[in-house]
């Protein structure tokens, strides 16, 4: 049975990353994969006990998916600290030939915001001699905010079909097709950028005025 590890890189509660990982987990399990989710609590990401557990899990795995939000162009501290702690123990992972996939997402709609984050995951694979299979960049994910993907309407419209299409790619350990990465990276709200910005500022202002009342 294919063994897949899903790492949750978000420090936030509730978190859009957890919604995406939960959606991917259920799809993978339905397809017959064995799935382990690694989701360290705040402060636990580089703790020896958690890293030991991570190493043991990774040694038995075929596929690793690093799912992480992007804060200021990069995965947050939680993700980088875990990757550093794991990669420092590279000798304990000798012979481990994981296929690695990245899922980076943020509230901003353009894939360029996620580009450096995905490159960092690719560098990890080069350092560890793992197989980089590519990444997906979702935009406009902030409103998902921990809800099941099925309840996220417009904001989950790129995520749900992308995860459906990603499952067979993961299970066959193939590279992510460019067409899939491109589709997933499209804005969930296909409005001209300036109109979108105007609308989002209106929504924010309405929220603030309701809060003030």
């Amino acid at each position, binding site marked *: 049975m294919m063994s897949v590890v899903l790492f949750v890189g978000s420090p936030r509660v509730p978190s859009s990353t957890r919604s995406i990982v939960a959606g991917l987990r259920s799809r993978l399990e339905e397809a017959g994969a064995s799935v382990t989710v690694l989701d360290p609590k705040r402060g636990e990401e580089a703790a020896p006990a958690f890293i030991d557990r991570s190493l043991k899990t990774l040694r038995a795995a075929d596929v690793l998916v690093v799912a992480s939000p992007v804060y*200021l162009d990069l995965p947050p501290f*939680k993700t980088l600290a875990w990757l550093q702690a794991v990669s420092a123990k590279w000798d304990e992972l000798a012979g481990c030939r994981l296929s690695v996939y990245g899922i980076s997402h943020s509230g901003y709609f*353009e894939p360029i915001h996620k580009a450096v984050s995905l490159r*960092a995951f690719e*560098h990890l694979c080069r*350092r560890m001699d793992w197989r980089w299979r590519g990444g997906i960049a979702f935009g406009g994910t902030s409103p998902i905010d921990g809800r099941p993907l099925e309840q996220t309407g417009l904001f989950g419209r790129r995520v749900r079909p992308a995860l459906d299409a990603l499952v067979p790619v993961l299970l066959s350990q193939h590279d992510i097709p460019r067409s899939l990465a491109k589709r997933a990276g499209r804005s969930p709200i296909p409005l001209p950028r300036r109109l*979108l910005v105007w609308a989002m500022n209106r929504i924010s202002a309405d929220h603030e005025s309701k809060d003030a009342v």
Partner: protein
Amino acid sequence: MSVVVLSAIDSSDGRDALSRVLSSVADTVHWVDLMRIEFGSCLACGGCAEMPRCVLADEYTPVIADLAACERLILVTPIFLGVHHPVMKRAVDRFMPLGGGPFTVRQGEMHHESRMEHPFSLVGIGLLVDGALPEEADTFRMLIARHAVNLDCPSHEAYVVEDLGDVAPRLSNPLKRGGLE
């Protein structure tokens, strides 16, 4: 000129040379040794979306206010996977209160407006330490360019060196002429 240096370098090698250059061109230099202060990681609580400050109160909190007022910010970090050392990222994650204004379009991309009246110029100094691959240098330069767009910096510069002492003479001229491209 006021300069803030955030350093995630564990040793003092090369720091003296860099400090000398900065002291000769800047009115004030605030050097923050991230490896030697206690500070927490961003909770992503969204508190700074409501008000322009971080909800965490620790040794790093006053540094965020200094960042908003400085003219140049210099990030000194070992390169890890082509990007910041995790400790530098812990500090950068807490830049969130500096942004957080209304949404805007900048350089054709969606961003938040800066809350800084005069955003700083940005300098990134990446140290290629053991284990770093040569191609990670390009990723680091790309990262600093992306930070400059995100933080609305008027200019930026990225240096990748193997020894911190190597950057001092290269940094001196752009700082003296008062501008960075």
